[in-house]
């Protein structure tokens, strides 16, 4: 498969060692019109993602568009935290450490009664987009689409130099002062989508460091504020 998700259908890879939870998450995802693949372990997930444990072979091919390497494109990975062997956290780390895979948004599900703040913090720190408490509900799954869309948008910017869909600009005008700002405009577009997402995010994610955002777009620096539009000075 070449480019982005075909026909706007996103493909989610769900990882869980429990057969019941796999069935449940599969139904939840399909109800939300996602394509679903389920596997029962982290190692099988990596296998499916085309990761062979050898980063050198990854670098030999163009690392900018990961779509070329995967046999099947995966737009999001949702994984159980507590699994025998490779935990969801281990899987998250492997994905985020891989130049080949790290653009893929990852969501963690945990069955702990009282989710340790440390656990959820760790996961978000490591680059997980969301941390869901099990049993996962439809309302949780509804939070997934923005993450997949944002990644798709970022990939479009990287590949084509501009967002495919100008309508994605959520907030009014973006004042530009010439060509130098076109890059800023792309950044703002991606940022606005992200901000929209974090505004819609019910979870109290104190830490929204998004490692999946490309290094070039540094979210921690001066964030443009859209409520009070000012001309960006160069």
């Amino acid at each position, binding site marked *: 498969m070449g480019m982005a998700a075909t026909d706007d259908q996103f493909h989610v890879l769900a990882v869980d060692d429990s057969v019941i939870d796999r*069935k*449940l998450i599969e139904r939840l995802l399909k109800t939300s019109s996602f394509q679903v693949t389920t596997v029962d372990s982290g190692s099988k997930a990596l296998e499916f993602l085309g990761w062979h444990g050898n980063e050198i072979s990854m670098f030999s091919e163009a690392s900018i568009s990961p779509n070329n390497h995967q046999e099947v494109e995966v737009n999001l990975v949702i994984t159980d935290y507590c699994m025998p062997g490779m935990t969801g956290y281990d899987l998250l780390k492997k994905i985020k450490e891989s130049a080949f895979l790290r653009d893929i948004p990852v969501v963690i599900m945990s069955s702990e009664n009282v989710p340790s703040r440390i656990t959820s913090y760790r996961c978000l720190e490591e680059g997980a987009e969301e941390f869901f408490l099990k049993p996962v509900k439809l309302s949780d799954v509804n939070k997934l689409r923005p993450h997949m869309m944002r990644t798709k948008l970022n990939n479009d910017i990287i590949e084509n130099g501009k967002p495919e869909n100008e309508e994605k600009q959520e907030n009014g005008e973006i004042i530009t002062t010439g060509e130098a700002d076109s890059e800023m405009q792309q950044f703002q577009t991606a940022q606005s989508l992200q901000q929209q997402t974090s505004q819609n995010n019910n979870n109290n994610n104190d830490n929204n460091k998004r490692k999946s955002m490309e290094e070039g777009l540094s979210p921690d620096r001066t964030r443009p504020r859209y409520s009070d539009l000012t001309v960006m000075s160069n």
Partner: protein
Amino acid sequence: MEIGGEYLEILGSSILMTDYLEYSNALFREGLLDGQFIQLQMLRDDSNPDFVVEVVTLFFEDSQRILNELSKTLDEQNVDFKKIDANVHQLKGSSSSIGAQRVRNACIAFRSFCDAQDVESYGFCFFVLFPDQMCLRCLQQVKQEYLLVKNKLEALLRLEQQIVAAGGVVPTLNDVS
């Protein structure tokens, strides 16, 4: 006057539906099921009419396997408490996923007793003196809750079948717990 067959059919399925609602309400009130079960029912539709039956069946199979494992592990000379904890954790997860609240709670209690078996962290503790006994008690409790909810769920799903066979529609449940 002859009562028409259609009328009887509607009457029949109405009675069944009322039975169904009463029965399920009782299950929620008694805490056997919680809102998660309703979430499961919400995922059932025309293209996946057997979803709930499938999940519940999987739950029964998986739980039976785990309970057998637990019995076997507790029977051994040197009880592997880590293995017990792992199994109970699994059962806790699956029961939580289908909404079997009391089974889940029994598992949580079981695990807290298992934690007490870790001599290193708890040092001298009453439960350490009779660890196997405590675990056996816990296992009994879990088994009991499991068999109870299994019974009730089977009855509930049978009612659903009857409603559908009688031409009725399975009512949407409300969590009255």
